[in-house]
């Protein structure tokens, strides 16, 4: 449903993304992984319309949306969360989520109703009256998720929603993400927590130094030579293979 076609993003002399393509199947959870600085968040910004790509196209349901403003893309069904959470700090949780809900609901009462429903879905129903700035890190991540969900998106871009959470918080939020997919929302997620990627994603793309170097099932990608080298350095794939061979012999 979402296609990124040969996107290149250049900031002056810096080539952030070079000729990257990806294809998200409707109803899937697709992962986007890669070392730090690979250009993952930049690619998200391009998909959500915050950056105009130097070259290439973004298509949603086979419609070219490369020239559309972010708010138009939100209306056509793309929602994103931010890696560095961006709550409306002066507002409470319910008001935060309601801003998202207003995208599809004009009447205040309907929007508030939708916001409460989404809050229940992500487990924020007890915090509705709390100020957004008083939430814990995990709470703020949930709030990012809730706000994006309140726009009733067709595809949800999650930018490291698990980063900074402790293992038990991650365990709590994984079922939430799966239930979002089960409710019919396609998900594209940037994630470093491999446990979650292996657990959730059906298909994974690997971005390194702005180039798409691999794609496939999580298991296949993890054994890919290029991917291992991108994370651990040149020659490491060979070394790992030799080590495991040694173990097998022993």
């Amino acid at each position, binding site marked *: 449903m979402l296609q990124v076609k040969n996107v290149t993003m250049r900031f002056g002399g810096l080539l952030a993304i070079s000729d990257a393509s990806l294809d998200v199947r409707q109803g899937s959870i697709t992962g986007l992984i890669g070392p730090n600085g690979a250009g993952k968040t930049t690619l998200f910004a391009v998909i*959500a319309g*915050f950056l105009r790509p130097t070259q290439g196209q973004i298509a949603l349901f086979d419609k070219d949306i490369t020239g559309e*403003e*972010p*708010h138009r893309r*939100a*209306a056509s069904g793309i*929602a*994103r969360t*931010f890696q560095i959470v*961006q*709550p*409306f*700090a*002066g*507002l409470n949780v319910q*008001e935060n989520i*309601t*801003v*998202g809900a*207003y*995208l599809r609901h*004009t*009447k*205040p009462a309907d*929007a508030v109703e939708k916001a409460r429903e989404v809050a229940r879905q992500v487990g924020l129903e007890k915090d509705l009256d709390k100020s957004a700035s008083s939430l814990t890190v995990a709470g703020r991540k949930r709030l990012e998720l809730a*706000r*994006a969900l*309140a*726009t009733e998106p067709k595809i949800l871009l999650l930018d490291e929603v698990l980063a900074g959470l402790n293992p038990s918080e991650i365990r709590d939020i994984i079922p939430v993400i799966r239930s979002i997919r089960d409710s019919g929302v396609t998900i594209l997620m940037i994630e470093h927590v491999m446990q979650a990627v292996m657990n959730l994603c059906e298909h994974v793309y690997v971005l390194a130094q702005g180039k798409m170097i691999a794609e496939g099932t999580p298991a296949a990608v993890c054994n890919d030579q290029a991917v291992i080298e991108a994370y651990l350095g040149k020659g490491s794939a060979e070394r790992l293979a030799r080590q495991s061979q040694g173990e097998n012999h022993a």
Partner: protein
Amino acid sequence: MMRGYFWIIVITLLIAATPLLTSSNTFFNFTVVVLIIALAAQGWNLLGGIGGQTSFGHAMFFGIGAYTASMLQTHLGVNAWIALIAAIAAGSLAGLIVGFLSFRAGLRGSYFALVTLAFAELLRVLANASEWTGGASGLLLKLEPSLANMQFSSRPTFMLLALAFVFISLVITQHIVNSRFGAHLVAVRENEDAAKALGVDVLTVKLKAISLSGAMTAAAGVLYVQYFLYIDAAIAFGIWISIEALLAPMVGGRGRVLGPLIGAFTLHGLGEITKSFAGRVPGIDLMVFAVVLIIVIAFASAGILGLLKKLSDRFAAKGGA
């Protein structure tokens, strides 16, 4: 949907009842000025308080309103009420133009404040030079009290007229705060990028806000000229009204519907009281303004209403425990 309207009605009725209690012209003079400032400040509050786009040049809208109304009446003999509508439209249009130029260029914070100041100053210089605006000697409206001319020989009547304007501005603002547009405006104030990601058309929201804001402040300019029957460039486009328009919401409670009215009454009330004590020390009321502002910034950055809310929350928390 009574949310917020209760206090608007109570306060309006309280002010409307004052002619039953007093017949002091000093009091009505004072109240008329406060109400005019409260109206101008409500315009500022809509854009700067709720929308977070701090203007330092709301004098431009005040002056455009005042000059449009007086020029139409003196040069073209237009009826005062029609001139009022034209002036409000002119303020709204001016808002759109300034907003389009500055918001489309992405100006925010102090840059936006400086641009608004520049526009106000530019208009002041132009009004001071142009023949149409009466140059440096200003424009005088002919004294002809009648309902059709929006002039009243009785001060309480004019106070009620000004109060009606303020009441309408309060209702409009409260309605916006309760609405989707209000939520979008607050979202833009809090975080533009997050707002965009949630489908908020940031530029349109800001343009709507500045045009409404310009309209309200222009109406205040019209009231001013209808009351004092005189306008010149230093009054209409002077920095004093830009400061009054932003000081009242700051003191009363920035972004709160009743903030500008409460702030204007507090500031000018304190100013008058000090004047009556200190007698002939010139500018003593301005010194009071400065002190009040410092106190507010240091101890109650959310203004008087913000402070009241904090105290009532604390009280409620204690009562519940």
